[in-house]
């Protein structure tokens, strides 16, 4: 997903102020409290379900007392932090407080990265004043949402006024806020109905009880709004209100239980049946309820219930209704006690209704809730929902199917299982489930349905062990056969195909052809739906650039991948380490070991540098190269050894990469046998000149000049030579000429090598070649300025600045430059220690450093301080 906000009234309802309830009591004393509260940064409305929290805030938001624009966000049970922040960003955009380009739309349902909240806070600092109401904060799982709100509230400045509505105290430092007078609280006892309000409420529901009766009810319900409303409902249906009140107060039953049971029992049979059945769902549409109950008059019954404010309330701007949380829990309890077998059945029916409406993602969720995995899998495959599943971030996700048993029959369940494995980067798992899918249909075809064939072909492509251009063409053919509206519904399909083709080419050891496809893929990723995929494509492109020796481009694409992730707040769980690895590779080639280590450290925190075998190999190779450059050869070998027997070594690309890294490390420590053995493990081929070059290096070092020369000539004929291959070949020839006593010719060749390497700032081949380079270069004076750049310190422009520091980050860095500790900086700037640490992390990332001293130095170089 992306969270689809446009066009769906159901989601727009989450950003609307809830409907004005019939018979609502105006409560001026509390409205004034809210007006007062919103003069400060934070207002907290807490209390049990049904005490009238939402009703109060909604009536305040509608009234003139709200002098600032109000942005309202309602949280639902299934809203994860990423979804929540997407709503907040959308709500703020609609109110005009945020411009489209202030920050990107959050694209991962799970979470957002802190970088997005930093941007949000700084954008709000400049925005016109507004009130943000968050209703149902307790429904957000975990502490991520309150933590994020705390960060934004503490950093957005006085323009943002928060109103938080929750059943429980949110995990905010309320004690400190109270001491600093930063919070205004409206708590349960404030919300309890006074006698005057209770009279109004009962009158509004069409009952006019006398004074003693009101007192009795008020005492027994303790001013609980929902309780009073239920009393009114029960009395309106009862012949004798006084009799109801008597039995209510005499009852020993829990108040809510008694009232709910009474009111439910007082409903006519059709309404009661409808409530019990529909109550298993969080929100309902009249037609959906008709499907669940088989009743044609479902719509009318819902309307009646909403009119007398019983159990359901309409969602603003839609035909949908939602259950009051208090009633939903009770209704489910009643259903479970009466007809326990019905619940899964109702979910399955709802799944079918959603499927008929073309809401296939909801159909999958309901089918999963009802345990109907065959239907869930069929919907997922038929409607190509494996595409969002593979492109990441949305719904359905691999988590939706985490409870699916392994023995669900049919090819489609196997295909979905394969896609879930692929989404978790488990390529062998994906392949084995694909085989099961093929076995289930009796062959590799799966051609009966276009969507099935396309899904299978796409998975085959993504899990291909080596270059798989035919599979990519197959996917393209099947894609072309899809109806155009189906294709338009999945804009990620084509980029996903290109991404798969490129990764397969990389695995096949063809970086140059992979780059061409990745460039197309990046261009094909448009819209919020493809942000994650674009981030991944840019990272892989950077890696392929680096493998092709195009260091400048690698740097650009790597930085673009990281910037995109920050722009959209992609959380670490969904970030790809490919870009970081590429930047590390660039830094290594340029002999900037500190920067390489920094990038590697960052990249290693991201899951796909462990789970994705290609990236894992790349990461180990880079670690080995780094250790080799530092002279720690044993350490280098440990990084590589584990992979030689692994499954990744079966693909030509990674195998060659490993072998060359092994050989280079062995050459550096003078172990020619080990170098030769490492290279012998993979067959030579025209496609892999780097392998031939390494082999030539080994032969030359072993004093077999004739063999080395033949290899050099073979390599030079290859049209897949990278810049670094060419530099290495020139250096080999130069060294040979030097050994043969042709010093002038050696110098010519060295100058050529230097001129070839210079545009990309490539330094590593010269260091690796040995000390003779330096001696030979000493005699270059006057011949060329070529050598001077090699020895010069890195120009600042060598390392990319991903983006400018924010004003806050600059402040923090200024304090750090004064040699202050984190605690001191926090005290000085009146921030929490954690906030300072967050800023520091942002600074490190933006400046591509890993320590504070480097950050200060680098910022000075760039005149940022």
């Amino acid at each position, binding site marked *: 997903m992306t969270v689809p906000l446009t066009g769906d009234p159901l989601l727009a309802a989450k950003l609307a102020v809830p409907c004005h309830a019939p018979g609502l009591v105006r409560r001026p004393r509390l409205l004034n409290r809210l007006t007062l509260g919103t003069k400060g940064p934070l207002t907290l409305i807490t209390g049990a379900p049904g005490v009238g929290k939402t009703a109060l805030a909604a009536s305040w938001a509608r009234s003139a007392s709200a002098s600032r624009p109000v942005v309202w966000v309602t949280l639902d049970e299934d809203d994860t932090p990423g979804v929540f922040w997407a709503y907040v960003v959308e709500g703020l955009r609609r109110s005009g407080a945020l411009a489209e380009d202030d920050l990107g739309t959050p694209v991962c349902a799970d979470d957002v990265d802190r970088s997005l909240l930093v941007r949000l806070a700084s954008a709000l600092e400049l925005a016109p004043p507004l009130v943000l109401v968050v209703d149902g904060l307790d429904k957000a799982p975990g502490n991520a949402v309150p933590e994020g709100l705390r960060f934004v509230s503490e950093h957005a400045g006085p323009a943002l006024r928060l109103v938080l509505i929750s059943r429980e105290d949110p995990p905010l430092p309320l004690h400190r806020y109270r001491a600093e007078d930063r919070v205004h609280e409206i708590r349960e006892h404030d919300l309890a109905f006074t006698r005057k309000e209770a009279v109004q409420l009962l009158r509004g529901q069409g009952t006019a009880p006398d004074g003693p009766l009101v007192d009795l009810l008020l005492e027994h319900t303790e001013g609980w709004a*929902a309780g009073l409303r239920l009393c009114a409902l029960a009395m309106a249906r009862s012949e004798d209100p006084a009799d109801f009140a008597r039995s209510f107060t005499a009852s020993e*039953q*829990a*108040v809510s239980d008694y009232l709910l*049971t009474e009111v439910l029992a007082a409903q006519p049979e059709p309404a009661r049946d409808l409530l019990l059945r529909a109550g298993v769902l969080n929100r309902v549409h009249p037609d959906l309820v008709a499907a669940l109950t088989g009743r044609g008059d479902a719509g009318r019954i819902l309307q009646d219930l909403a009119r007398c404010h019983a159990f359901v309330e309409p969602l603003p701007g839609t035909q949908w209704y939602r259950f009051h*949380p*208090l009633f939903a829990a009770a209704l489910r309890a*009643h259903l*479970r*006690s009466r007809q326990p077998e019905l619940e899964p059945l109702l979910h399955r029916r709802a799944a079918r209704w959603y499927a008929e409406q073309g809401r296939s993602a909801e159909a999958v969720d309901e089918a999963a809730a009802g345990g109907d995995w065959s239907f869930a899998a069929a919907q997922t495959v038929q409607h190509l929902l494996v595409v969002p599943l593979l492109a990441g971030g949305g719904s359905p996700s691999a988590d939706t199917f985490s409870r699916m048993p392994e023995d669900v029959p049919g090819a489609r369940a196997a295909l979905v299982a394969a896609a879930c494995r692929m989404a978790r980067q488990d390529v062998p798992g994906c392949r084995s489930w694909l085989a099961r899918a093929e076995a289930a249909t009796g062959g590799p075809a799966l051609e009966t349905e276009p969507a099935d064939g396309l899904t299978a072909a796409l998975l085959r492509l993504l899990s291909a062990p080596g270059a798989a251009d035919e599979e990519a063409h197959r996917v393209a053919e099947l894609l072309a056969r899809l109806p155009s509206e189906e294709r338009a519904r999945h804009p990620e399909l084509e980029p996903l195909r290109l991404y798969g083709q490129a990764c397969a080419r990389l695995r096949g050891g063809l970086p140059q052809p992979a780059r061409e496809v990745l460039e197309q893929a990046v261009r094909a990723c448009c819209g919020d739906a493809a942000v994650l995929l674009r981030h991944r494509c840019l990272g892989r492109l950077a890696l392929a650039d680096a493998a092709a020796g195009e260091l400048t481009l690698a740097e650009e694409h790597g930085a673009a991948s990281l910037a995109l992730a920050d722009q959209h707040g992609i959380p670490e769980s969904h970030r790809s380490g490919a870009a970081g690895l590429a930047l590390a590779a660039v830094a290594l080639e340029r002999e900037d070991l500190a920067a390489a280590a920094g990038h590697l450290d960052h990249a290693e925190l991201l899951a796909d540098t462990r789970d994705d075998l290609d990236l894992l190999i790349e990461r180990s190779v880079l670690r080995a190269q780094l250790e080799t450059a530092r002279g720690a050869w044993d350490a280098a070998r440990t990084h590589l050894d584990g992979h030689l027997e692994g499954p990744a070594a079966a693909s030509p690309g990674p195998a060659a990469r490993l072998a060359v890294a092994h050989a280079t490390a062995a050459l550096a420590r003078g172990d020619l046998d080990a170098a030769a053995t490492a290279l012998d493990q993979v067959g030579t081929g025209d496609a892999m000149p780097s392998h031939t070059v390494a082999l030539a290096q080994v032969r030359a070092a072993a004093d077999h000049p004739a063999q080395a020369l033949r290899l050099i000539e073979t390599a030079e004929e290859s049209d897949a030579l990278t810049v670094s291959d060419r530099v290495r070949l020139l250096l080999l020839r130069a060294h040979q000429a030097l050994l043969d006593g042709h010093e002038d010719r050696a110098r010519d060749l060295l100058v050529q090598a230097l001129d070839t390497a210079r545009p990309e700032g490539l330094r590593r081949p010269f260091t690796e070649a040995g000390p003779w380079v330096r001696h030979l270069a000493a005699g270059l004076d006057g011949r060329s300025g070529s050598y001077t750049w090699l020895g010069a310190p890195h120009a600042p422009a060598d390392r990319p600045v991903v983006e400018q520091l924010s004003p806050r980050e600059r402040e923090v860095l200024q304090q750090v430059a004064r040699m202050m500790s984190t605690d001191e900086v926090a005290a000085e700037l009146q921030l929490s220690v954690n906030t300072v640490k967050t800023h520091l992390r942002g600074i490190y990332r933006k400046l591509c450093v890993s320590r504070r001293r480097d950050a200060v130095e680098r910022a000075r170089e760039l005149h940022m301080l």
Partner: protein
Amino acid sequence: MDVAGPTGLRRLGERRLPMRYEFRITGRVSEPVSHAFPELREFPAARQTLFFGTVTDEAHLYGLLGRFRDLGLHVEEMRRLPD
């Protein structure tokens, strides 16, 4: 050295063992509503209902408290029962 050795470990392990709890709820609870707590046994008392049962871990405990709250039930008292 094992200052925090075997005893420390055992204590940690004990904390993770399932615990028996008692919850006292204000008022009597109807049969359907008690179905919302299939893992607990229920005993009526004067103007109260007692729920007993084994609580797997803290997450389960907080989940139970949330369920009481969602149904509008007030927890008057809650205690861990001796093993």
